[in-house]
């Protein structure tokens, strides 16, 4: 139905474009110079009036229809079914009704729920028909209004350009809406979580066991939401990643910027960037397939017990992924140091090495630091490598040979398979997401400030 609605609207828009063109031609005959704007502008004007309002109506209808019908169907339920039920039970009833309406119900639901499901199904089809009808009426109205304005002296070009302006502004505002959407949705769900668990316990608690009983008869731990072990694990893995990536990335950048011949540089730079283009799920598989067994064999050989999903595996592989970030940002920073500083140092008789260490690196340090901070934020937010290669159990340890867990791993494990956001377990994922968003945002802002200030200094 939805596809038809949009297809019909598209067809109507095209037809209205033709009509607009024909009307523009018709009102001046062969003397087209009498038109203020070219016929295509008149036609676009009509098409915009047909397509845009009706399209917006369709989108708005789609957004509102689901929640409104849910509310209506819940109100229509017999009183004894909903009396005294909590939010969780009500949403369970609602999802049962939806399953009946969608024909995917299993087992045999109660009679009132079956009836409600049928009701929801018929309401849905009514609503969709109404949506189609309303959209068509709006489109027709738009067509009538717009084409009545077509006249030789009508400034269609200006009108179309104004519409274009608004469309472009709307597209640019999507960026703000996305940020707003992220902040609001994370904040709302995190607030609900902090309604269950106090922020003090979340931010300073030392035990993380989110497996709580969803049904009364399940046997689980009591559920503890102290996120310190998760934060420490994230920190540990990011630290290992940076310990791998920073020296390798920085040294390659120094070599590429100062020693390498142009041909070598032209060949190696893109090769290193390949590392950044490989999907992270590939790194995750690489960690499981190669790095973890190799490290374990090595550990056995030297008598060191290394867990298969130790922090070292995930952090090390993540470090490989981050090398190109550090190397290309450091390379930019080093090559941006003015030629005169480099020449001055060399002219005094310093070797290249001495120039690098006592002139270039200090001058490029802010840029390098900015790059490292960006890489840290990348490491903290990285998901697939740690989901596949790091642990799930949160243990409070700084031992790199032990498995630890990270914020992103916890978000994924808490949310997989669950779509109801009403228990602390799933809500905790949003609280973790909020922490992740805020910390990466802060890191990025600081890094960009440093890089920018440094750039201004030399330009």
């Amino acid at each position, binding site marked *: 139905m939805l596809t038809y609605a949009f297809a019909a609207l598209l067809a109507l828009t095209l037809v209205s474009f033709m009509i607009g063109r024909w009307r523009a031609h018709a009102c001046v005959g062969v003397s087209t110079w009498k038109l203020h704007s070219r016929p295509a502008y008149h036609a676009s004007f009509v098409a915009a009036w047909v397509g845009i309002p009706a399209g917006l109506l369709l989108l708005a209808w789609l957004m509102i229809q689901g929640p409104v019908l849910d509310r209506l169907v819940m109100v229509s339920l017999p009183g004894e079914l909903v009396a005294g039920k909590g939010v969780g039970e009500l949403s369970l009833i609602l999802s049962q009704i939806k399953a009946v309406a969608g024909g995917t119900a299993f087992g045999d639901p109660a009679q009132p729920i079956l009836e409600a499901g049928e009701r929801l199904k018929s309401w849905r089809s009514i609503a969709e028909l109404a949506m189609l009808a309303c959209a068509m009426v709006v489109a027709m109205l738009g067509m009538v209004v717009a084409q009545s304005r077509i006249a030789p002296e009508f400034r269609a070009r200006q009108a179309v350009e104004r519409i274009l302006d608004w469309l472009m502004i709307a597209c640019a505002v999507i960026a703000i809406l996305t940020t707003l959407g992220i902040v609001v949705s994370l904040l709302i769900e995190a607030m609900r979580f902090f309604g269950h668990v106090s922020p003090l316990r979340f931010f300073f608690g030392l035990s993380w066991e989110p497996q709580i009983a969803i049904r009364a008869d399940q046997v689980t731990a009591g559920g503890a939401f102290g996120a310190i072990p998760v934060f420490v694990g994230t920190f540990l893995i990011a630290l290992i990643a940076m310990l791998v990536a920073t020296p390798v990335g920085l040294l390659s950048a120094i070599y590429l910027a100062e020693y390498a011949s142009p041909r070598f540089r032209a060949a190696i730079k893109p090769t290193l960037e390949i590392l950044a283009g490989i999907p992270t799920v590939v790194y995750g598989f690489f960690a499981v397939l190669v790095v973890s067994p190799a490290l374990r064999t090595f550990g056995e050989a030297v008598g060191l017990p290394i867990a298969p999903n130790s922090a070292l595996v995930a952090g090390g592989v993540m470090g490989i992924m981050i090398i190109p970030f550090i190397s290309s940002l450091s390379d930019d920073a080093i090559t941006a140091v003015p030629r005169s500083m480099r020449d001055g140092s060399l002219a005094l008789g310093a070797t290249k090495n001495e120039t690098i260490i006592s002139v270039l690196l200090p001058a490029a340090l802010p840029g390098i630091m900015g790059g490292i901070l960006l890489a840290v934020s990348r490491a903290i937010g990285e998901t697939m490598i740690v989901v596949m290669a790091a642990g799930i159990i949160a243990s409070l340890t700084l031992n790199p040979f032990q498995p630890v867990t990270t914020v992103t791993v916890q978000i994924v494990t808490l949310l997989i398979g669950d779509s109801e956001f009403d228990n602390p377990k799933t809500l905790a994922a949003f609280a973790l997401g909020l922490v992740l968003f805020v910390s990466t945002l802060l890191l*990025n802002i600081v890094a960009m400030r440093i890089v920018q200030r440094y750039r201004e200094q030399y330009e």
Partner: protein
Amino acid sequence: MSDVSSTLRTGPATGHWRTAAQQRRLRRRYAADRRMQILGLGAIGLAVALLGILFGSLVYSGYLAFAQTRVVLEFRIDPALVQPDRIQDGNFRSIIRQALFQQFPEVTSRRQQTELAKLLSPGAEWIVRDHVQANPELVGRTVNLLVPVADPYDQLSKGVIPRDVPESQRRLGDEAIGWLDSLDRRGLVRTTFAWELFLNADSRFPEMAGLAGAMTGSFLTLLVCLLLSIPLGIAAAVYLEEFAPKNRLTSLIEVNINNLAAVPSIVFGLLGLAVFLGFLGLPRSAPLVGGMVLSLITLPTIVIATRATLKAVPPSIREAALAIGASKHQVMMHHVLPMAMPGIMTATIIGLAHALGETAPLLLIGMNAFIPSVDSIGLLEPATALPMQIYSWADSPERGFVARTSAAILVLLGFLVAMNAVAIYLRQRFERTWS
């Protein structure tokens, strides 16, 4: 610098570069320089070696999945087991077993027969069924068909399961190996290209599992992403670069876009989960939702790159068009955008290549559905995507899925290489440099 001052203080006689002490010093300084070079080269070598190990291990563990061991068997389509008018309900399992037992008349005990039946892939049944369905005249006749063997036998024939270890440490017993070898001696075993990998959807059996479902899902997801992010991204970039007045709203938008480009992708997954699934009630696992989330992720990249390309179009073009009376919009639509288009397309393709490999946000909106058939895939139906398929295969315990996962990764990397090659080609072929 300290060298110079010390030389000055102590006078030329002792500070002369010919003295043994200064020569030593010089050698030390040059050695330090060489050390730095070696360290730098070593770091590059390490990074390149790691890249090589990564690709090498994937190719090494994955190339076997492109081949599949099969056997040619003679199947008698017994009319007692398959009614001509109800072929899909026929008992093809018995037909398969009969064809297999016919090759080994010496296998008579029930236990052995059960073991022998495991030689063929469970998918063989469907292959024979589909063949008979396409050729109904075969009922009552015999037909020679090439059917895949089960995963352990496939691994044995490829040498992944070693023959020279004691029987207790092997997945297959001596008897089972003997059966395959005896078929091989009779010339019935063939190794052919594994079309299943590209033509089949997902399956619980590694030898029948393929990427068709995942590729279709990825295609639909990227299509949605493309249709959303190209117009939105270009419009936003054009507005910010060419039309926007310098006010607080536009600077807010700019800061926003720059920050969004650095937000971890999993946060976008949370956004999709809370807003698209939770608030708007869109279906879980659907390519539509996946595409919407991915387009939010690629939008900032496309906007930033498009703005850079627009900035590179020289002002003289704009001024010339304005001077002959074009409106600002006409300058944009008729001159600047067409000139910037190759650059914008390059940026878009690179953005899409990133979106193709993006996994975490899709995981959160549940795009890891098990898709056993390509027919069921639609924009609003549950689907999976290539990276998600890799993730779920990597989690599967069967030995055959390791090779399948590597093969899937090679396919994904192949797509990425192809997309980047197109982008580079576009850049070199069409992009103009303005001097």
